[in-house]
């Protein structure tokens, strides 16, 4: 019952986010600031993780191909498939649920407990539009950084297999091109867009409607991370079933 109530409240929140817009002159700056915090600020960790996990995927694939009958290009093929289909869109989104998500929940939650949100509302500002809309808009750039992650994941895989002698550069690149289905890329970006929306809104929901003080802000961030990840995993399953199943 409690969950249904929360889900209803979440959708009411979304409706409010898109109503009564804030002046464009002010909104523009809010969006730029969020792009800086949410997108640009996430690049470092995204680059680091993508490159190394891509490398590990390649090494694992190579080590698990015992049979000499299996062609060497499979390393490149498997790396491409896992990075594009799951690692970059889903795995990175879970990490972003921790990074971006807890940042959003704690910043909005702090505004709630220090009555800054009340202050906005007293002035007649639509606080949800003011706080959440710029985050959703900034996250429109999320697919862009996920494509960076895809590229770096594959680059990491290439580096690891060439350096480790698992396959030659030519074999790896062959593998990257084999049986390439553009629809897979569409599938990956379709879910990235949905995840971007989830990453901006669920943490906002937990921050905006929290009660209590500083201690509860910390708790809300944790809860927000758990729920954002759970929803991403479930939506991932549904989209995969719908588009590929």
């Amino acid at each position, binding site marked *: 019952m409690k969950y249904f109530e929360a889900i209803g409240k979440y959708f009411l929140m979304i409706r409010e986010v898109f109503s009564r817009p804030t002046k464009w*002159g002010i909104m523009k700056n809010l969006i730029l600031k969020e792009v800086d915090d949410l997108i640009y600020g996430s690049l470092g960790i995204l680059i680091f993780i993508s490159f190394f996990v891509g490398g590990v995927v390649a090494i694992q694939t190579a080590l698990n191909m015992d049979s000499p009958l299996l062609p060497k290009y499979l390393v490149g093929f498997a790396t491409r498939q896992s990075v594009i289909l799951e690692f970059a869109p889903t795995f990175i989104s879970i990490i972003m649920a921790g990074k971006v998500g807890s940042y959003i929940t704690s910043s909005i939650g702090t505004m709630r407990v*220090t*009555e800054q949100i*009340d*202050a906005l509302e*007293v002035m*007649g500002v639509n606080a949800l539009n003011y706080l959440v809309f710029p985050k959703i808009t900034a996250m429109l750039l999320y697919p862009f950084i996920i494509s960076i992650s895809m590229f770096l994941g594959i680059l990491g895989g290439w580096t690891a297999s060439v350096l480790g002698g698992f396959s030659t550069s030519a074999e790896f690149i062959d593998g990257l091109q084999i049986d390439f289905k553009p629809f897979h890329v569409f599938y990956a970006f379709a879910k990235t867009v949905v995840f971007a929306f989830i990453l901006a809104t669920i943490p906002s929901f937990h921050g905006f409607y929290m009660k209590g003080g500083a201690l509860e802000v910390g708790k809300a961030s944790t809860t927000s991370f758990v729920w954002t990840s759970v929803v991403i995993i479930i939506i991932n399953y549904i989209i995969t079933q719908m588009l590929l199943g």
Partner: protein
Amino acid sequence: MIFVENLHKSFDGSPVLNGISTSFEKGKTNLIIGQSGSGKTVFLKCLLGLFTPDEGNIIYNGEAYAEMDDVKKRDLRQDMGMVFQGSALFDSMTVEENVMFPLKMFTNNPISEMQERVDFVLERVNLVDAHHKFPSEISGGMQKRVAIARAIVNNPKYLFCDEPNSGLDPKTAIVIDNLVQEITQEYDITTVINTHDMNSVMEIGQKIVFLKDGYKAWEGSNKEIFKTDNEAVTNFVYSSELFKKVRQMYIEERN
């Protein structure tokens, strides 16, 4: 003028306000006093429309808040200024940006005009050299003054202050009280102030509403509060030795 009729508010079944009726006058500093936890903040937030009352009416300028449509409510909001208990300054903005925020949000004035107005109100609250500091870089008393400046920058008709001088030393507290009273009279604002500070009651209590256990236990002015025999009021007012002596002297004088 603000009229309040039979205001009820409870949270999860436990009542906080049990039917309060009173009125707040224009151009006067109206005080709501009562112990910590007596419901002052909840009452003020009901007046502001941040909480929806369970029952009862709040009437602004002849019109019940609950019956206004969204546009009217929004217009009314823009005539309100609020100083929160913890100042509630936007901590990502400088002092100047905080004060300018309502102007940027709701007026289309040229930036030079807004700047002029911001400089004027900051000077009015005696803050002249903090324009570019962040709230975390100034003292509590200064934060309160910034909050007052932000609340009055858009020429409100109604000013609400939740314990504007809590956590301040007595001298700064009196400065803030006087500031609020001066502004109220100067611009003919309807001001409602929550407090449990007896100095404020004596200094600026033109009208006082005393809350106890969610009821209005007494109302009157600062001149009357020392004469009343209402037990709840005397227990509250004379809880300090100093005020007990003041009352003693007053009674001796009268005899």
